[in-house]
């Protein structure tokens, strides 16, 4: 049976190709391939480790903070540098708003069109849409006139004949289940989110000079001075502006994103049985609450869950990580069936795929630019679902509260989390709890400034002359998409080796030396496909891995009271 090919996979960052075998209306086999290579690890060799953050940052302009932070942490680990308090808190705020903005953009602008039929929205009754919106949230944009306005704009747009990014898509597909009113509401919020995201990210402008590609990171701290008595430093005005933006961020999450997730989810409960994946979850943990560097002090705890066993979270031992290239376009001198720890990692790139233009990859041989990272030989999923599961099992109070409430409302057990639906629910939970921390951490920064602490950089080891001849270290970070690690070896003040294992590498990896598939490949198997020519369902599961939307059915406030119930109309 011929394979179907989806290339380009749209609404992701980067270039992804999926090949799949569909039989009996579902996917029976799948292969994931990254089709673009740049060689950043190669480019870094011989450069100043203090510059590495800027190079690696350009791995991704969507998660534009993550590689910079991880790179700097790897150098700080290698050189044994502890950053000042102000820098620690600033980095937490930067990471938190990145999560919130990135996850919301993902839900509306990357994932939503898999669940929401825009053309159906044209048929919606705007009064009924208003009732729906008001039944799930007290968000102010909810009048019938408002939704009529959105619908009229949509009608004019479609009538213009130039459908732009909505052309040639899957409107009318049988897998779309939302009534027209829910579709119209979602479209309205898609448009509102487009305006919202550029505003709340100004927190990065204040702390990071600009977004995308913040430019205030330093090995040893941050380059943004702190001084309440200076107009050229973070001061009371900066704090006030950040508080306002954080409020705006949190309100949209509480009043628009979460209620929409609940509404959409209620129509797609059957997706709790698809897209489960490998059942192994890896979390490095993040958001250090103090400068100790201890894993117990991470707001998002570190841990591993194997085989969906929620009775315990296992410790993470970075020596057990290895990358395989059996089905990847690289060569290891020791043999392509071997795994290599990133400190000994190599990037000997060698393309052996078909010459373009090609129709199919040779999925029996090497078929991707992604290596296959494995933990103790196991394929691991990373991302918000992994984080929420580990946090839950580790006893994180707030995450447990919100997750329990979601499960209770859905009327399902934890097993539902191991799915496309569960993955999206987890991301919403994570966005909510992270948005709640934004004002807390901004206040923490203000409190530290009030103490008179102006230190933003630990400069004692800034000069390479203060470094040992050789050093090695690693930096870990929980990027919005999952566990991220950089491993560095420094020799004579220059980068001797640099290896990055990126969340998409874990999740999108091809088969390893034992033929074990990666998380995306595994998750796709069993996904229903009503029409192989229009693989909407495959997109749905794939997109669930990228910072993703959630489908919870309830929203719970701080005291555990139920705030809203979704009316299914």
């Amino acid at each position, binding site marked *: 049976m011929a394979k179907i090919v989806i290339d380009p996979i749209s609404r992701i960052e980067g270039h992804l190709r999926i090949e799949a075998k569909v039989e009996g209306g579902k996917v029976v086999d799948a292969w994931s391939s990254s089709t*673009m290579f740049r060689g950043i690890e190669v480019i870094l060799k011989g450069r100043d480790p203090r510059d590495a953050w800027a190079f690696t940052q350009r791995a991704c302009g969507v998660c534009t903070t993550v590689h910079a932070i991880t790179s700097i942490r790897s150098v700080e680990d290698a050189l044994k540098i502890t950053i000042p308090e102000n820098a620690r808190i600033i980095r937490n705020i930067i990471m938190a708003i990145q999560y919130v903005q990135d996850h919301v953009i993902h839900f509306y602008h990357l994932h939503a069109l898999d669940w929401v039929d825009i053309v159906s929205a044209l048929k919606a009754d705007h009064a009924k849409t208003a009732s729906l919106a008001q039944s799930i949230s007290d968000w102010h944009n909810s009048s019938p006139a408002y939704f009529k306005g959105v619908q009229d704009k949509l009608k004019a747009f479609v009538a213009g004949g130039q459908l732009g990014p909505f052309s040639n898509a899957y409107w009318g597909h049988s897998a779309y289940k939302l009534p027209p009113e829910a579709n119209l509401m979602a479209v309205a919020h898609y448009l509102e989110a487009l305006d919202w995201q550029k505003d709340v990210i100004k927190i990065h402008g204040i702390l990071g000079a600009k977004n995308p590609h913040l430019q205030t990171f330093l090995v040893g701290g941050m380059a943004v001075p702190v001084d309440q008595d200076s107009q050229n430093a973070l001061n009371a005005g900066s704090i006030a502006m950040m508080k306002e933006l954080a409020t705006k961020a949190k309100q949209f999450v509480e009043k628009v994103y979460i209620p929409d997730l609940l509404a959409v989810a209620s129509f797609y409960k059957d997706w709790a049985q698809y897209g489960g994946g490998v059942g192994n979850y890896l979390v490095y943990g993040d958001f250090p609450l103090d400068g100790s560097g201890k894993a117990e002090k991470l707001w998002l705890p570190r841990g591993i869950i194997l085989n969906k066993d929620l009775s315990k979270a296992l410790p993470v031992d970075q020596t057990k990580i290895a990358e395989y290239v059996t089905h990847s376009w690289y060569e290891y001198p020791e043999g392509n069936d071997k795994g290599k720890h990133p400190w000994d990692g190599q990037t000997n790139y060698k393309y052996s795929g078909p010459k373009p233009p090609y129709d199919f990859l040779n999925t029996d041989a090497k078929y991707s630019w992604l290596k296959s990272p494995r933990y103790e030989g196991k394929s691991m999923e990373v991302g918000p679902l992994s984080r929420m599961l580990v946090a839950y099992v580790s006893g994180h109070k707030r995450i447990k509260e919100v997750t329990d409430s979601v499960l209770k409302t859905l009327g399902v057990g934890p097993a539902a989390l191991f799915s496309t639906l569960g993955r999206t629910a987890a991301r919403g939970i994570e966005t909510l709890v992270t948005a709640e921390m934004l004002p807390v951490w901004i206040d923490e920064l203000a409190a530290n400034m009030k103490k008179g602490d102006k230190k933003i950089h630990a400069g004692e080891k800034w000069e390479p002359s203060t470094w040992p001849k050789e050093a090695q270290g690693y930096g870990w970070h929980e990027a919005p998409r999952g566990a991220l690690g950089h491993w560095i070896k420094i020799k004579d003040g220059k980068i001797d080796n640099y290896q990055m294992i990126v969340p998409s590498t874990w999740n999108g990896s091809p088969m390893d030396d034992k033929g074990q598939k990666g998380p995306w490949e595994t998750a796709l198997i069993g996904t229903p496909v009503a029409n192989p020519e229009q693989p909407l369902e495959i997109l749905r599961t794939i997109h669930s891995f990228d910072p993703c939307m959630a489908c919870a059915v309830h929203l719970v406030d701080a005291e555990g009271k139920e705030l809203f119930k979704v009316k299914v109309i």
Partner: protein
Amino acid sequence: MQQDSLLDGLIQRGISRRDFMKFCTATAATLGLQSTFVPRIAEALETKQKPYVVWLEFQDCAGNTEALLRANSPTVKEIVLDILAVEYHETIMAAAGHQAEKSLADVVKNQKGKYIAIVEGAIPMNEGGVYCCIGGKSALDIAKEVCGNALATIAVGTCATYGGLPAAKPNPTGAVGVSAALPGLKVVNLPGCPVNVENITATVVYFLTFGALPALDDKGRPLFAYGKRIHDNCERRAHFDAGQFVRQWGDSGHRLGWCLYEMGCKGPQTYKNCPRIKYNEGTNWPVGAGHGCIGCAEPAFWDSMGSLYSRLPNVPGAGYQATADKVGTTLVAAAAAGAAVHAAIRLGKGASKKDEKSE
């Protein structure tokens, strides 16, 4: 199907005429035009159809796409839904796979010679272009076909303009910018890592208004955005001139907003309008925040300016001779010559010349 003019479309979508005029005024400002040009811009947008645009991504990080999302006056919502017909953009489009490929092919065929191609990301040339394939085709082949049949190509970001990060030594994949991959093609270069989105919209509006591409410097960059160095417009220039330099991160000079030259600022050799338009609707920019410019709009900046933190040598007026203790290669002589070339180009070209006369 009857296609409305741009202004008709905007009004139908609830954009008031007042908002529309505000947009034209903002664009005129970005382009460095006097207010007398605003009615001309408005007229151009009122009467023209939504131009077809396809946005290609090659060896990229999507930073320029994300920059587009931060646009204001107009917002990305207005750009993508009201002002331009963006029929292909992998990061935001609903269709995938064959359906996405059809969207691109339809524009190339039905709008041949009339659409604008925007390119983000470098094109790898080694080994027949295997290092970047989309839909089974190499980036080079896609660029040849799509850019080759476009009315004009706009390369956004330093990767698409000059090769950018993938082209940094040792350039493992033979990455180059669009102009180098397709010599002879008419390309406007909007470098920056990523580009400042206001420069993208201003370029498109310039084209719609004047029916021509803006005056470009010798690197293919519009003069309205890249005609002056960071150093020429920098809010900290007074400190540079007075010899007040930050010497250590977090010192009193840093807190007082002193010049970042000694901390590695590449402003004296970088041509871009960051100090004037800043980022995220004027929120901030690197020097304003406290970290030097890294020269991200300059070709090969990852290699040509030394480490981010090494001082540029021999910057005139630094108050003293900077000894090059840990410094990379320098382009100071070329920069001085470049400034002279810039002046010559400004005096020689169309609209810019009118500007000069009326000043």
